[in-house]
């Protein structure tokens, strides 16, 4: 069969899965007075449609910031405005100022779900297809399989179509950045990434690799000549794009400060709820939140984050190739997730995107990470009533990815790039590390299944009401930490000289 038809079938399959999930419940459905993310998005449509731009981020009589105040950058606000115009055409009640608060109806749910699907179809899915066809290696069939597996990643589907958010826009724009950079158009790539950064500030997790990759490229071309010209071009593009996005707010410094203040709410503490990062897991042993002051926490987390991303960034700066870039994206965003301040459980989607790009190269670790990331959001899914879609999409993803990418056949020590471990741990007994990895994978998947089952079926003991969410997040944290080390080692261990060419030849 021709490629286009296979790809279309994969895309249609992905869309079917997405729409099937979207028939389920969303966050905060029927839970007044605050509802959930669904109501937040609807509320932003209401606010942006009815209020002038300079009131969007300010607490006014018509805009109560304590009730889902806008806390994303301007592109999100513009997107809400666009959706609001469409909503107004269909049913004016949906965006009526004040009166529409907490509006829930069958028609409105369909409309909101459709907006996610349209955004996904326009931004994320084309980027995935382009990436797989132009930037991943292997036969055409393999590329098609990659498309299908990336599109079936359960975490993104469940958060966007179940819980309700527009991650496919910010992640999609970042992916466009990667694709365009990979094709060699540096200016366009930086444009796409700045757009994604202006859609969600969390994209900062990806910003350092983008910066280092472009800077490294400039260095390579020689900062005295063409490199400088490239650097200026990129800098101008970034500044102009930023300026255009922030245009309505530039007139008044107070506006800019207020928006920035809304985007980075420092006062909200080191972490909220149960999230699978270092601070929350450490909190089991040491009560950091009570021991350290907020400022100390902030500096402490900033330092550890910087330390964690430093090695991969320096390496990327010295060797700006696409392969290094992808690994650095994983390492940087995962380090941010594990160590930075005020992390949400949903932010695991940011490392998950670059890990999706590694599905073709390192199938088993990538699948492992992606499944663990989905699992880490289990408490959220249970709260939203998404148990059944969680189970079904996870099973489908595991089956398709393991089978289509032949994950178990590609897990020799060599393929998994486990060589450095031998050198690091000389005293280790002789054993097949590939097989050990495979067994660890089996064990971990079984444990995830068991923990999922326990979270659903068993009642926690009275003294420990949060036992299962905590177990889930600590268990996922261990995975993330291990995989952060692994991906760092893979990245750092790659020799600076181009050995990859030799590898290709030997393959």
């Amino acid at each position, binding site marked *: *069969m*021709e490629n286009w*038809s296979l790809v*279309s*079938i994969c895309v*249609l*399959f992905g*869309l*079917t*899965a997405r*729409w*099937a*999930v979207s*028939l*389920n419940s969303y966050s905060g459905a029927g839970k007044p007075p605050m509802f959930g993310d669904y109501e937040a998005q609807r509320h932003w449509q209401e606010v942006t449609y009815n209020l002038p731009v300079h009131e969007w981020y300010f607490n006014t009589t018509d805009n109560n910031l304590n009730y889902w105040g806008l806390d994303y950058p301007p592109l999100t606000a513009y997107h809400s405005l666009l959706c609001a115009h469409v909503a107004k055409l269909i049913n004016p009640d949906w965006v009526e100022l004040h009166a529409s608060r907490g509006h829930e109806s*069958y*028609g409105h749910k*369909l409309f909101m779900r459709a907006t996610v*699907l349209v955004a996904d179809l326009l931004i994320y899915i084309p980027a995935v297809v382009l990436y797989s066809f132009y930037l991943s290696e292997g036969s055409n069939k393999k590329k098609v399989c990659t498309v299908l597996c990336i599109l079936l990643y359960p975490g993104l589907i469940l958060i966007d179509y179940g819980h309700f958010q527009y991650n496919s826009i910010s992640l999609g724009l970042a992916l466009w950045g990667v694709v365009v950079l990979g094709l060699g158009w540096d200016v366009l790539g930086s444009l796409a990434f700045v757009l994604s950064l202006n859609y969600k500030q969390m994209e900062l997790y990806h910003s350092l690799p983008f910066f280092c990759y472009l800077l490294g490229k400039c260095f390579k071309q020689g900062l005295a000549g063409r490199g400088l010209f490239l650097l200026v071009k990129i800098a101008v593009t970034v500044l102009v794009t930023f300026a255009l996005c922030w245009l309505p707010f530039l007139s008044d410094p107070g506006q800019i400060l207020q928006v920035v203040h809304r985007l980075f709410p420092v006062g909200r503490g080191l972490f909220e709820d149960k999230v699978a990062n270092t601070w929350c897991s450490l909190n089991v042993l040491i009560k950091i939140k009570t021991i350290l002051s907020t400022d100390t926490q902030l500096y402490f987390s900033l330092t550890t984050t910087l330390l964690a991303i430093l090695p991969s960034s320096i390496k990327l700066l010295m060797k700006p190739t696409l392969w290094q870039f992808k690994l650095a994206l994983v390492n940087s965003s995962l380090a941010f997730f594990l160590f930075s301040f005020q992390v949400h459980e949903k932010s695991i989607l940011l490392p998950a995107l670059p890990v999706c790009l590694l599905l073709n190269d390192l199938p088993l670790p990538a699948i492992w990470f992606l499944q663990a990331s989905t699992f880490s959001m289990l408490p959220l899914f249970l709260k939203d009533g998404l148990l*059944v*879609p969680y*189970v*079904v*999409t996870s*099973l*489908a993803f595991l*089956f*398709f990815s393991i*089978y289509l990418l032949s994950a178990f056949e590609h897990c020799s020590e060599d393929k998994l790039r486990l060589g450095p471990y031998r050198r690091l741990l000389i005293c280790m007994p002789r054993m097949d590390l590939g097989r050990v990895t495979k067994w660890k994978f089996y064990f971990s998947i079984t444990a995830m299944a068991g923990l999922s089952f326990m979270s659903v079926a068993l009642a926690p003991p009275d003294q420990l009401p949060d036992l299962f969410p905590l177990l889930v997040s600590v268990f996922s944290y261990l995975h993330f930490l291990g995989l952060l080390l692994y991906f760092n080692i893979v990245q750092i261990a790659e020799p600076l000289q181009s050995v990859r060419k030799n590898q290709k030849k030997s393959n």
Partner: protein
Amino acid sequence: LASVSLITALAVHCVVLLTMTVFSGYFSHSTDFEVHRNWLAITHSLPVSKWYHENTSEWTLDYPPLFAWFEYSLSHVAQHFDKEMLVVQNLIYTSPATILFQRLSVIVTDIVFIYAVKECCRSVREEKGSKDLLGHPFFILAALLLWNFGLLIVDHIHFQYNGFLFGILLLSVARHLQGRHLEGALLFTVLLNLKHIYLYIAPAYGIFLLRSYCFTKDNTDGSVRWSSFSPVRLVALGSIVISVGALSFGPFIAMGQLPQVLSRLFPFKRGLCHAYWAPNVWALYNMVDKALSVLGVRLKLLDVAKLPKASMTGGLVQEFQHSILPSVSPSITLICTLLSIMPAVLSIWCRPRGARGFLRCLVVCALGSFMFGWHVHEKAILMAILPFSILAVESREDAGIFLMLTTTGHYSLFPLLFTAAELPIKVLLMLLFTLYSFTSLKKLFRGSLLNPLETTYLLGLVAVEILCEVVYPLSPWQHTLPFVPLLVTSVYCSLGVSYSFIRLYVSLLRQHGTDKHKQL
């Protein structure tokens, strides 16, 4: 290698099914959902003697006894999910546990279908040389059957046990293809006693078994050699049919309830067409009648007052009264059906072409009864589409007809899912299946399978869909003439189905002709 890819297809099917089924718990619950729940309750809580007398719910038991026993056995599992669903008085009872049980029961019984598909794929003729797994005829057949759009939505979204029933049918066909005729006959008899709609294809079975099994030899020109008749084989067949029938209907005959059971099985009180006209000859007939009456009123040849009132809201009421053309009675539809399948049946009597000739005849019977039958449901088109898939992967001409038939037939199922939330699902699934069937068959036979006219007709379906489900609901006529989209759909689809029927017939008779020619 072959088995590996087959396993893939099966596994994919399981995942798809699981997905569909579990999600479909959130879809609207169709009447068939309540029908089967009611049958569970009847068979579980009432003695056998009351099964066919019970009428608390309007959805009385109207399947043959073996299916009632099937429901009876399911009900023993059901009681562990939710006992309330087994109470006859609990009408329209849809607790989450009930939905889960019902949906899971469809998935689990689908195992029969999966096994049957595996057996069918084994009996497909393989071409040599094709290395590509996806290009193998058996893989394509597995995909066409397992991912069949119609079966998927009718069973797993709308709710019925067709996967289980078609599994038995396909298994029986596969047994005939493998030359295990007695097993095939046994399976078909069981099937008939599960759902009597398969009576429509019984002529193909009867004639084929009589001609090709009971007569062991042909003359050199292919005609029947009367001296080769084997009474032993006839007795064997007869005893299979009679013993299964006795097992199923025996108890009711003993209780003297046979007339009551039969009156439940064959309710001729219903109208010529279902509420939504299945795309067959009668849909065209109704349409012509309606057009003539409108024309007559316009030209002042007819008096509006004298016209039957119901005809103006046709499509919504069960009884459609013809205003110009003569009304059609059940016996007329029966005669038309018999006439339509007669040539095919005669053809396999005179020149049996093995199990494949039988399969073609079976498809013609299914399609003929769909075209001319009384009170046909749109779902009945699956009875032709599923067995036809086997022929479609073996011959180029059949592949072309198959594409026409499946695409129109599947599109005609769209009104089954009518809520706005289900619209994307049905469109996506339909596109998925249609795209797959077109590209895979095109690749298999290396070239285009449809002529420009057929392509145009099929593209017209897209226009019909947009018109009926997007444009029309926004127009002012939606409130005054709400039935127009259904009417347009069934009339447009009936053109395609009729065309496929005619082409199928032509192919059958042409084969008949060439066979004769060869022998001369």
